[in-house]
């Protein structure tokens, strides 16, 4: 029996239940739904960590894969990205206790985990020579952590747009009173991005250093690295607009959402353009 998949299925179930609880909490003032959401997320996270642990156990059965993280396959990458998304959400939720944020972030984690289970192949494969390097435990891990944080910021952005719409509408619904203020959401969106942006750029630089040690070039304009750079440029634009031009609210969120679209394209879309970073080729 493949315990990695089994535990991931369990995590998926808990994330889905937590998402459902988060949606109920949007329309039901009872705080117990928020508490349940948090507990379900914690349980899902524990199962997901166990799944990752088993994944490592299976992966290391091939001696050449020791002691690298099993994130070379699409399955491994998607599972790790979902894990990181939930972990970042867990940290934000523990610190801010917004409760309401779950409805905007957890669906992504549930979709990510579900997609890994449905569309990706969990079979363990040996690492290609380019990936047999300790950098695999650093470069993609850092980058995917930043992607996960941007995913959370995107959730906050969606909440902000809904709140903005509610406030401007003539008949604001119950939701308007449940969501935090626009200022608070804008501040949270900004603070997540401010945390994730340096992580993204450091991840890109680490990739450059790895590329130099593997192929002798720091930067090769490979589509994956180019799109990561585009993502960084968009978020840098967001930070400058906010810092210098004082951009706030809806417009700032639109810019950050363009950034998240770039994140998604860097993670998924580029695989159709680049054989080097493509999961199917197993390249670097």
């Amino acid at each position, binding site marked *: 029996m493949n315990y990695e998949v089994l535990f991931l299925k369990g995590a998926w179930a808990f994330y889905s239940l937590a998402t459902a609880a988060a949606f109920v909490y949007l329309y039901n003032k009872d705080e117990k739904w928020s508490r349940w959401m948090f507990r379900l997320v914690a349980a899902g996270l524990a199962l997901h960590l166990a799944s990752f642990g088993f994944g490592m156990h299976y992966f290391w059965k091939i001696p050449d894969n020791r002691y690298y993280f099993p994130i070379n396959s699409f399955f491994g990458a998607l599972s790790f990205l979902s894990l990181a998304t939930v972990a970042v959400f867990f940290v934000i939720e523990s610190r801010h206790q917004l409760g309401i944020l779950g409805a905007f972030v957890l669906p992504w984690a549930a979709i990510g985990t579900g997609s890994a289970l449905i569309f990706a192949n969990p079979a363990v494969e040996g690492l290609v020579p380019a990936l047999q390097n300790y950098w695999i435990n650093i470069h993609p891990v850092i980058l995917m952590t930043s992607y996960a944080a941007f995913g959370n910021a995107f959730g906050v952005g969606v909440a902000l747009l809904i709140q903005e719409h509610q406030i401007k509408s003539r008949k604001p619904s119950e939701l308007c009173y449940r969501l935090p203020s626009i200022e608070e959401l804008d501040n949270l969106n900004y603070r997540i991005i401010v945390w994730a942006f340096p992580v993204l750029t450091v991840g890109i630089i680490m990739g450059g250093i790895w590329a130099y040690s593997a192929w002798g070039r*720091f930067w090769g304009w490979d589509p994956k690295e180019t799109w990561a*750079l585009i993502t960084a*440029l968009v978020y840098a634009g967001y930070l400058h607009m906010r810092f210098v031009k004082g951009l706030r609210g809806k417009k700032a969120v639109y810019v950050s959402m363009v950034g998240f679209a770039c994140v998604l394209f860097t993670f998924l879309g580029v695989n159709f353009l680049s054989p080097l970073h493509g999961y199917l080729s197993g390249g670097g």
Partner: protein
Amino acid sequence: MFKPQMTRILRSIRFNIFLGSLIAFFAAVGTILPQLGQEPQKANAFMQAHPLWTKFFSFFGMFDLYHSWWFMGILALMAVDVVLCKLWNKPPDVGIVSLPPELTNEEDLEKHLDKKEAALKLKPFQAFFGSKMGLEDAWLAARGHLKREGYHVKEEFFLPGQAGAFTATKHRIQRWGSYFAHIGLVVILIGALIRSVFGFVEMVPVLEGGSRRMQHMFDPRSFAQRVEQLFWGHPWNMKEPIDVYVDKFTIEYYHGTMEPKLFASNARVMAGDQLLGQKIIRVNHPLDINGVRFYQASWGAGGMFRSVTLKLGKETLKLPQRTPVKIPGTPFTVEADMMLPNFTITDGQADTASLDLKNPAVRLMFSVGPHQTSPLWLLQNYPDLCFTEDANGQLTHAPSPPFQLAAVDPILFSGIQVAYDPGFPIVVLGAIMWLLGMIALFYMHRRRIWVLLESSGAGSCRVNLGAWSSRGVREYEAEFRSLAKSLRTELKSEDNFRLTENPIVEVS
């Protein structure tokens, strides 16, 4: 030279954001339009398929977009603009705005004492309380307390019997984070520029057991090398061409698959008779000779082979490349002249999908005396498949042959990438500066507290606090509240103190 209006545009952050957007846009175009540097075959195919577009795109260097003069120009302009922006534009940071009254000397303090309320109201966080300590004692105690809290106390002014004031700051380095990060960015770009001027990358495919001469020459008389000598010294001072030898190439596959787990070249680098370096190079483990690095970048089967083995019933027959061999017990001779590593059919003709040995196929010619049959293609992985090839190279299915392709012993080539990048240490230095700048800018939070003490008779005084922080409002509010409370205890205050935030809200 430049009109003031021009420099204003150049140093504006808006213009820098525009340049960043332009770089992002063209970088994205380069990932969609096939590039000669990244995917030469795809780019050539595109050029053949769209001759009209090709004329247009080639004019603007779009097939080597990232190295085109105008793209490099935008990058360089961006670097210059970042420097201009940082030189001319002060950071939008309320923390550097001094608290009015402008406390430059004691007289100023005296002059502006009456304006203190208004001045403190400019700070996002304020607290006011009375103290049961004399002015001087309270002044010393407040300074001591903030120092113990990790604050750096400066701008101290004291008028005996009247008032005292000072500012206390923490994590002042945060202010320099932005400068440091932007300088780091420019240093990275300088490193990249040094690489593009002085560095090189050359792909040297070497057949196993053979050698290949590098195209790049190390001519000490060249301009680039003379400049390099002046600054950091060129790795090699020789006029002889460099030959790369691969004495042995090893490839190992994961069990039961054609996925390589290791490939390595036993490589030698020679300049004439002189041995410059020797190593078994693997991916991620290059050979370094004075900064010039030899990387194991790729490998492949180019179609050469030592021998192929045919299975005829129980017998096997080994055929070296292009050497006719007589088939025992028959009048036939057979010759294997061509091998394709990953056989596929393109436009009815034999072709290879890649250079790895995923589906090896061999072309055989049978002859009896002077008469030769049509060439025949046999596939190692599909023993029942067989194709004949006509004079135009077109393939036709043929019935299963009575012999099979049992094995191929290919001569592989090792793709060795030779790279020299004197800009790399500078890029790393820039990256470290960027990282430190980012940590200071985003992860450290500056706090600045203004303290104004006024005497309110013997043995008591009035304490006014104003504060600002780059931290989030919510987080700093809690921190300031706790700091004000501890200071109040320290200064033996019995008041219910007022802790305010703009707009002023009373807190008991």
